[in-house]
């Protein structure tokens, strides 16, 4: 008997309770307690998730009896299990309806006469069949019209379930009372697609279990880290409120049992991201970055929204359990449009071309936020979503290819841009964009398991890197305080984030330094760290998918792997090794335990997180994910050779990085886009922001003013005022002729006379 799975809503409720408590009582308990309250909530959520995961593992069953155990397990009437399509899943998909959210277009009883009626007949219930159809057609109208003509002695509505006996008038008998479905047919008027009922529900399968663990686990660590990182911020309470709200929203996203529930989380995490990026709102730049993130995300959300409308129009439902098994029913334009629209949504949330521009700016938020939202969880929502709705993509190879191409292009371009960055967080930000591109490449190749696998390992090591970066910034600030002088900010980058001021931090902050090193190597894909396994898996799957496009994408992936190793090696060398390049770096100090313990935990996960042996121990990947996402057997390729090639690319990148930055003291003068045209273009981030500004933002702002000042005040209002003024002027003018002035009347007489003469000419020429 499962005890924890029915408690699934509690996982959601805990962080939400944290939000409510912090809003209501946060002011009274103070910032420090607020932090621990929030952390405790997420901690409990994590523990519960673990328990649920273990319990879910125990639900494994033979395919034949699929679902029955879950039915027994959940006595709640809202719960039921749904059998997924595909190769006999071993675990049941558990869905639990929480409440009916929206209901529209309910079925109405239609009255049809069971036998023909004659004039003077009396209808009683036995003579009528009450048929349940979506709507009553003309009956409502009929009763209205008849009441006017007093055809009904009882003056009672027709068709109203015939509760009372009704005397039938002749009109009705002529119509034979069957003026229902068979006589009146649609005439080019769009027909309603039945009952629209939408529930808020949760869905549990291995995919959501994995996401659940990642979100609550990494979220918990980052909460702990934040209590240290934000210890001196006066607005901690607000920070932790947002953070808890984010965890809640993200859980809604991954646990939602329908497109619309997913979308709720989808938008809410965007809102949390907006709030957290602009957390230090006194700075205009932070607020703008938050706004940019929200609006760019909304552009993607629009595509998602339209995609949902399209799906609903075809399926009459948005529940995963209704839509996904029937995905193959989509044909023609809708088959390709629906996944492409969803991809549009994913490019916004997961920062892919063309909507990736918000993510680098999002680094304006507190660093733990970058780690949690903009590296580990929210930005991977696009990958999760595509994996979740993969039957739609499987149904449209064109859309799949689009996903892969978007991912490949993003991976390569972001990696290139990352090469020249000097801001420690920006390197990581572009790295995140690039790695997300990797995941897209994977899901675009049908390798959903590999994509989600990389999602998880990336969550570990990228969260580690961001938290490490935050810890190093902390160390730099500490050092600057010690040294009594702040290094100068170059190119508008704060000194504590500028890698040009760092160097040799491995010695100054060993715990942070070593874990940062582990994270970096995992990102570079060094055997046997987590990144190696997942990246290797992706490259393998892309190549295995076959075809010229995917072979080219394999090359792109390999090149990106090389570039990733290059910029990671560069970052590690600049930050951790060499001589300190500023007093702040020389005197930097280690961060408190609350910050370094999460780093150590994440470092351990980054080391072991990808080991194939874990799967055998019960970890939710990759076989168990395959249970949801489809098993994928790669044949005909030598895995070892491919792994060696990938490792070679990673090592070559690291080697080149050493040759450029480790061999001798790096030349700081050549950084930040000062090493030739190519580096300038990359430093300028390919001028995409500028292009968007010229193409979209500036015209929008200018047209807004024109619309307001010229069109609205001038034309539309001018037309109205013009009519008013001309009427007024006509009144004023004619009033003078009636003002009692003799000559006015005289002139009227004269003109009248002239008109009369003229009329005589016309009438009698």
């Amino acid at each position, binding site marked *: 008997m499962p005890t924890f799975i029915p408690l699934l809503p509690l996982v959601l409720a805990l962080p939400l309770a944290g939000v409510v408590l912090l809003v209501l009582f946060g002011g009274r308990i103070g910032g420090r307690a607020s932090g621990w309250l929030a952390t405790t909530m997420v901690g409990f959520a994590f523990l519960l998730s673990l328990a649920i995961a273990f319990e879910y593992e125990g639900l494994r069953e033979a395919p034949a009896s699929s679902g029955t155990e879950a039915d027994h397990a959940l006595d709640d009437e809202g719960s039921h299990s749904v059998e997924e399509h595909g190769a006999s899943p071993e675990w049941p998909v558990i869905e639990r309806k929480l409440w009916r959210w929206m209901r529209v277009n309910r079925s109405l009883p239609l009255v049809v006469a069971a036998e023909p009626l004659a004039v003077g007949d009396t209808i009683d219930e036995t003579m009528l069949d009450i048929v349940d159809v979506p709507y009553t057609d003309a009956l409502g109208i009929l009763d209205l019209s008849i009441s006017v003509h007093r055809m009904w002695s009882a003056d009672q509505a027709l068709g109203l379930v015939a509760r009372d006996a009704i005397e039938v008038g002749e009109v009705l008998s002529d119509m034979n009372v069957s003026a229902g479905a068979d006589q009146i047919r649609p005439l080019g008027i769009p027909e309603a697609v039945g009952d629209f009922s939408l529930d808020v529900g949760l869905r549990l399968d291995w995919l959501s279990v994995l996401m659940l663990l990642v979100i609550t686990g990494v979220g918990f660590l980052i909460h702990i880290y934040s209590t240290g990182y934000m210890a001196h911020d006066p607005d901690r309470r607000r920070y932790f409120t947002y953070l808890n709200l984010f965890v809640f929203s993200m859980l809604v996203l991954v646990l939602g049992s329908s497109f619309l529930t997913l979308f709720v989380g989808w938008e809410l995490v965007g809102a949390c991201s907006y709030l957290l990026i602009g957390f230090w709102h006194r700075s205009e730049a932070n607020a703008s970055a938050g706004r940019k993130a929200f609006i760019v995300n909304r552009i993607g959300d629009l595509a998602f929204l339209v995609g949902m409308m399209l799906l609903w129009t075809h399926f009459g439902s948005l529940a995963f359990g209704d839509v996904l098994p029937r995905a193959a029913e989509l044909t023609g334009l809708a088959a390709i449009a629906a996944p492409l629209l969803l991809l549009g949504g994913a490019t916004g949330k997961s920062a892919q071309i063309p909507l990736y521009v918000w993510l680098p700016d999002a680094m304006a938020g507190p660093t733990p936020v970058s780690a949690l939202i903009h590296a580990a969880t929210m930005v991977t929502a696009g990958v999760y979503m595509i994996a979740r709705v993969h039957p739609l993509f499987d149904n449209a190879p064109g859309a799949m290819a689009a996903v892969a191409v978007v991912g490949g292009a993003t991976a390569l371009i972001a990696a290139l841009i990352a090469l020249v960055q000097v801001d420690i967080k920006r390197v990581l930000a572009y790295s995140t964009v690039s790695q997300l591109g990797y995941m897209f490449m994977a899901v675009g190749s049908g390798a959903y398991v590999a994509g989600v696998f990389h999602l998880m390992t990336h969550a570990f090591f990228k969260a580690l890197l961001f938290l490490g970066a935050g810890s190093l910034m902390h160390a730099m600030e500490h050092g600057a305080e010690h040294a009594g002088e702040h290094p100068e900010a170059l190119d508008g980058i704060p000194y504590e984030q500028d890698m040009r001021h760092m160097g040799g931090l491995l010695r100054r902050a060993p715990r942070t330094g070593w874990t940062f090193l582990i994270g970096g190597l995992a990102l570079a894909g060094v055997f046997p760290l987590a990144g190696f396994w997942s990246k290797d898996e992706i490259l393998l799957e892309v190549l295995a998918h076959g075809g010229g496009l995917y072979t080219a994408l394999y090359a792109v992936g390999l090149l990106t792997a090389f570039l990733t190793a290059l910029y990671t090696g560069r970052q590690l060398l600049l930050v951790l090794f060499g001589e300190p390049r500023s007093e702040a770096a020389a005197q930097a100090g280690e961060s408190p335990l609350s910050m370094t313990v999460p780093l150590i935990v994440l470092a351990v996960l980054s080391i072991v997180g990808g080991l194939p042996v874990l799967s055998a121990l019960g970890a939710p990947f990759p076989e168990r994910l395959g249970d949801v996402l489809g098993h994928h057997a790669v044949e005909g390729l030598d895995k070892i050779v491919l792994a060696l090639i990938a490792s070679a690319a990673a090592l070559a990148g690291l080697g080149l990085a050493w040759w450029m930055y480790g061999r001798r003291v790096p030349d700081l003068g050549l950084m930040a886009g000062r090493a030739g045209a190519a580096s300038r273009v990359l430093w300028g981030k390919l001028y995409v922001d500028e292009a968007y500004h010229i193409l979209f933002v500036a015209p929008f702002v200018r047209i807004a003013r024109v619309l307001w000042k010229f069109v609205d005040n001038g034309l539309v209002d001018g037309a109205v005022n013009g009519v008013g003024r001309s009427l007024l002027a006509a009144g004023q003018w004619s009033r003078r002729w009636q*003002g*009692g*002035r*003799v*000559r006015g009347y*005289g*002139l009227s007489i*004269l003109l009248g006379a002239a008109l009369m003469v003229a009329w005589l000419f016309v009438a009698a020429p």
Partner: protein
Amino acid sequence: MNAVPLGHWLLLTTALFGVGAAGVLLRRNVMIVLMSVELMLNAVNIALVAAARAHGQIEGQLFVFFSLTVAAAEVAVGLALVVAIWRSLGRTDVDDVSVMHG
């Protein structure tokens, strides 16, 4: 050509009538307006006499006789009004006389 056709007479009176009307419409001095009214009457009178001559009928002249009488009465009343206006307003601008009382 030893006589003037009726049309020429009428054209002359039309012109004269127009000049009188112009005086009525364009001038503000009430005296000149009254004189212009007389001018218009005069134009009509000439037209009547010319028509009488052209048709050889005496009635046209009789009409003129009557209209002269009416003109005399009109001038008498009109001037009385002017005097009354002048007394009450101290001015005799036609545009000042735009209300029926006071």
